[in-house]
């Protein structure tokens, strides 16, 4: 095969920022399309599905196929790319009538709380109606086409990524606007006479012909960039330009002519558009077709329930599922402890220096983001607890004075402080001893006390999980609240012969949110009515109501829980800041100034200051201002206890950004470490390639992903703060005054998080770390 052609065919980029949205778009549409078909809406047939998927495919080809890298070498390739963006993808996407399937395909919570309200915004509806008027859409489309072909702008886009993205965005958006009146995707209402489309398309074709002719017949190069490019396939630059003109001319004209023929035919037949002039009453509000139709059978379970998923659900329902996973994690913990105690005491060469601090932490936060408190479900420390329960069969309750989170807060602060102060990540020996200590403590506590005292009142990892899982998308909850009203046995909390019931004293019908829930699934196993599931829930929604929660109480009265949330949030920033160069430099500078020989004092001051003093000051100040400005009747303490949780999403965003950075940039560090550990046991898994995981430049998408985590955290935190500020307020003014101080705290945290992300981070766990 021709070398150039072979290289062309292999030059796919598979950029995650193109692949992931394309797949998500296809999945969302497919899910909605299936749901609408099941409800008997035959309007959404195979043709719509095919068109939409083809539209997505043409976008993908334009942006991720060899067309993109070769567009900088050949104008004709660039022309094909632009044709796909402006004239192929938009009409195909509209032919898929994507509004209802896309809406129906979104998770219920996102659709109801985030998308539908915006769809009903009169300002946006008016703006869109104006933009899709034939005259406006035509002018925008033609302006985009001609302006971007002006040599100065075109050349600019060829050398600047930012301008190139903008050019593509302009082409796609104006293409979508232009083709909207032509396709009139359901449920669009044409606000103009059909014959207008005839001059609309003919005039578009005329300008296309004029521009094409400019390219085809020009005697000099319009874009000097292409004169500098190497010659491919023997195509001279001027010849390339003429071919680009022909591509624009012939296929371009055909694309205008095909709908022209259809529309002309329809008008000649005297037909009217198939869409109703007005929506049927039930479609007057855009969300009605998808949210207000008669529920299908089993409507109570219309929300996504993990237990209903084909393989995962079946596994989770299996009685021994949790034990199986725990045995696996226990085995892994044993190997890590053994290597930590007996292996080389270099963090980057030891399983105890790599797996817990790079992989486990990364996977734990990613699991929190995607599912929920998966770690507690698979916790290896529960095995010694089980043994202790079997051996000692105690019935002693946890001491009443200790039934709060204060001890857990202290342990959590101690852990975060020790992590920084003693560089735990770089000490396999300490890591192994901490894990061993955990096993011993879990065994000892549960040998003395009944229920899950260790999990509820002590475990620092568990507390971290409980707080951050407030921002998770799944919750263990009842499927049908009415079903629980008739239940007399309450097995989910009391237990029965098959299961112990909830050891953390969470009565599922009165449970709200993921606080204190270890995802142990005991309630699911115990419920004789199969009425408990792992149900999708809007992240943070459980915080909006301040009702009494089983096993927790009322959040606004629990200062210990508020302190726990504050520590988890601010520790996320302290932990990440502790590893960036400017902070480390500052610490050494302070050390020199105080004349200290060890950094322990400075690190302790910094960490404890950020984890304890800063939240006390910031939250106290915000609560004071919020309370005073909004003239709230809540006490200062209640205000802090109520609002502190709005910071959880931004804090979780920081944890995610930090831990996912280590995970994604250093995941392959486990390979040479495993090879080394295997070699110590006499197994040959190959020579450890230490250099392969050293000094790797972080993938360019990683920083963007980290920022995205913070962005989403920011939005969710602001939203929750606004909703809480609006509680019991009738007017917007007091709501805003109550909201502003908390928004300021959230924005400060966001800015701090961004600053941290933009600093060079140490590559912990790698050979250079």
């Amino acid at each position, binding site marked *: 095969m021709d070398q150039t052609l072979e290289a062309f065919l292999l030059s796919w980029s598979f950029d995650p920022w193109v692949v992931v949205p394309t797949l998500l778009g296809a999945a969302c549409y497919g899910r909605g399309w299936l749901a609408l078909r099941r409800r008997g809406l035959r309007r959404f047939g195979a043709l719509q599905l095919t068109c939409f998927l083809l539209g997505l495919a043409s976008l993908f080809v334009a942006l991720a196929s060899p067309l993109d890298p070769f567009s900088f070498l050949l104008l004709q390739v660039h022309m094909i790319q632009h044709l796909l963006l402006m004239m192929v993808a938009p009409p195909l996407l509209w032919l898929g009538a994507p509004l209802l399937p896309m809406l129906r395909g979104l998770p219920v919570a996102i659709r109801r709380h985030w998308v539908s309200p915006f769809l009903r915004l009169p300002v946006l509806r008016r703006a869109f109606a104006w933009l899709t008027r034939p005259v406006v859409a035509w002018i925008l489309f033609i302006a985009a086409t001609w302006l971007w072909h002006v040599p100065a702008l075109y050349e600019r886009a060829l050398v600047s990524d930012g301008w190139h993205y903008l050019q593509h965005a302009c082409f796609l958006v104006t293409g979508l606007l232009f083709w909207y009146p032509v396709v009139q995707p359901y449920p669009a209402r044409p606000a103009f006479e059909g014959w207008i489309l005839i001059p609309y398309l003919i005039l578009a074709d005329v300008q296309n012909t004029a521009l094409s002719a400019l390219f085809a017949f020009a005697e000099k190069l319009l874009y000097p960039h292409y004169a500098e490019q190497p010659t491919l396939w023997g195509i001279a630059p001027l010849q390339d330009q003429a071919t680009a003109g022909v591509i624009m001319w012939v296929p371009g004209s055909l694309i205008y002519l095909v709908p022209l023929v259809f529309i002309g035919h329809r008008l000649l037949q005297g037909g009217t558009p198939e869409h109703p002039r007005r929506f049927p009453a039930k479609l007057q509000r855009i969300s009605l077709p998808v949210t207000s139709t008669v529920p299908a059978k089993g409507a109570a379970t219309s929300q996504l329930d993990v237990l209903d998923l084909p393989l995962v659900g079946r596994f989770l329902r299996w009685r021994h599922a949790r034990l199986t996973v725990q045995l696996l994690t226990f085995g892994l913990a044993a190997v890590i402890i053994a290597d930590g105690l007996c292996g080389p005491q270099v963090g980057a060469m030891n399983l105890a220096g790599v797996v817990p601090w790079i992989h486990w932490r990364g996977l734990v936060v990613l699991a929190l983001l995607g599912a929920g408190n998966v770690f507690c479900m698979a916790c290896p420390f529960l095995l010694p607890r089980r043994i202790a329960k079997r051996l000692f069969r105690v019935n002693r309750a946890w001491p009443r004075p200790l039934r709060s989170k204060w001890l857990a807060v202290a342990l959590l602060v101690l852990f975060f402080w020790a992590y920084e102060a003693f560089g735990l990540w770089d000490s396999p020996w300490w890591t192994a001893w901490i894990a061993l200590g955990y096993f011993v403590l879990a065994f000892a506590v549960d040998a003395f006390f009944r229920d899950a005292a260790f999990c509820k009142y002590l475990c620092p990892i568990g507390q971290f999980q409980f707080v951050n899982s407030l921002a998770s998308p799944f919750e263990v909850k009842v499927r049908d609240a009415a079903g629980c009203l008739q239940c007399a046995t309450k097995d989910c909390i009391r237990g029965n012969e098959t299961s112990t019931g909830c050891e953390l004293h969470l009565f599922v019908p009165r449970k709200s949110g993921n606080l204190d829930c270890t995802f142990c699934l005991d309630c699911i196993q115990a419920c004789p009515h199969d009425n408990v599931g792992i149900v999708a829930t809007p992240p943070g929604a459980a915080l909006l109501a301040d009702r009494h929660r089983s096993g927790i109480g009322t959040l606004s009265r629990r200062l210990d829980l508020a302190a726990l949330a504050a520590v988890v949030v601010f520790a996320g920033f302290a932990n990440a800041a502790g590893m960036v160069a400017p902070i480390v430099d500052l610490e050494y500078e302070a050390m020199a100034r105080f004349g200290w020989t060890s950094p322990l004092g400075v690190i302790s001051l910094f960490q404890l200051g950020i984890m304890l003093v800063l939240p006390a000051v910031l939250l106290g100040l915000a609560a004071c201002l919020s309370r005073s400005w909004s003239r709230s009747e809540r006490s200062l303490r209640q205000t802090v206890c109520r609002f502190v949780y709005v910071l959880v999403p931004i804090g979780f965003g920081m944890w995610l950004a930090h831990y996912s950075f280590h995970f994604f940039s250093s995941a392959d560090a486990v390979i040479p470490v495993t090879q080394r550990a295997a070699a110590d046991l006499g197994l040959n898994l190959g020579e450890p390639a230490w250099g392969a995981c050293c000094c790797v430049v972080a993938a360019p998408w990683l920083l963007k992903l980290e920022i*995205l985590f913070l962005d989403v955290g920011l939005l969710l935190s602001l939203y929750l703060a606004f909703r809480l500020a609006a509680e019991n307020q009738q007017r917007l003014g007091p709501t805003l005054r109550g909201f502003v101080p908390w928004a300021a705290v959230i924005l400060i945290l966001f800015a701090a998080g961004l600053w941290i992300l933009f600093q060079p981070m140490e590559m912990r766990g790698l050979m250079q770390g």
Partner: protein
Amino acid sequence: MNTSRIAVVVLLLLPVTVRGDGGTVRYARDCGPYRVTVFTSPTPFRVGPVDVSLLVQDAKTHEPLEGVRANLHLLPREGGVDVEVLATRAAATNKLYLSAKFELTAAGTYDCKADIDGPAGPARATFTLEAGEKLPPWGDLWLWFAWPIVPIGLFALLVLGKSGNVVRNS
């Protein structure tokens, strides 16, 4: 009525390609039996993650060549750390090129050598590169942290709209 379509489709499908390699042509000459074209990215060339790509073609036929190895050597003219990297096809998105992606640490003028070893024997291309100061990262990534302003603005519109309705109704 169909505002979301624009929002959802455009947000989901915004063209966010990353130019993996290629970029600005820095050198295009015949070097012995080869026609060598050197591209650099980003434009302007500056400190930070950079890409230097080579296209090696037959000098006569302009046919891209298989089995070519290229070693890049960047020497800072004002002194400093030399950079030596291997350009490979595996690192390139456009498989016509041999690409080297690395972190350039200092601004200034670099005297560059590309030692090429191909089917027609060895050859060397020499050229200079000017690397500018590193842009602050926010300059590159402002869109990534500024986009929340859009949903915040939309939410504000929604809230104000509702508030207006309440006032009108009362």
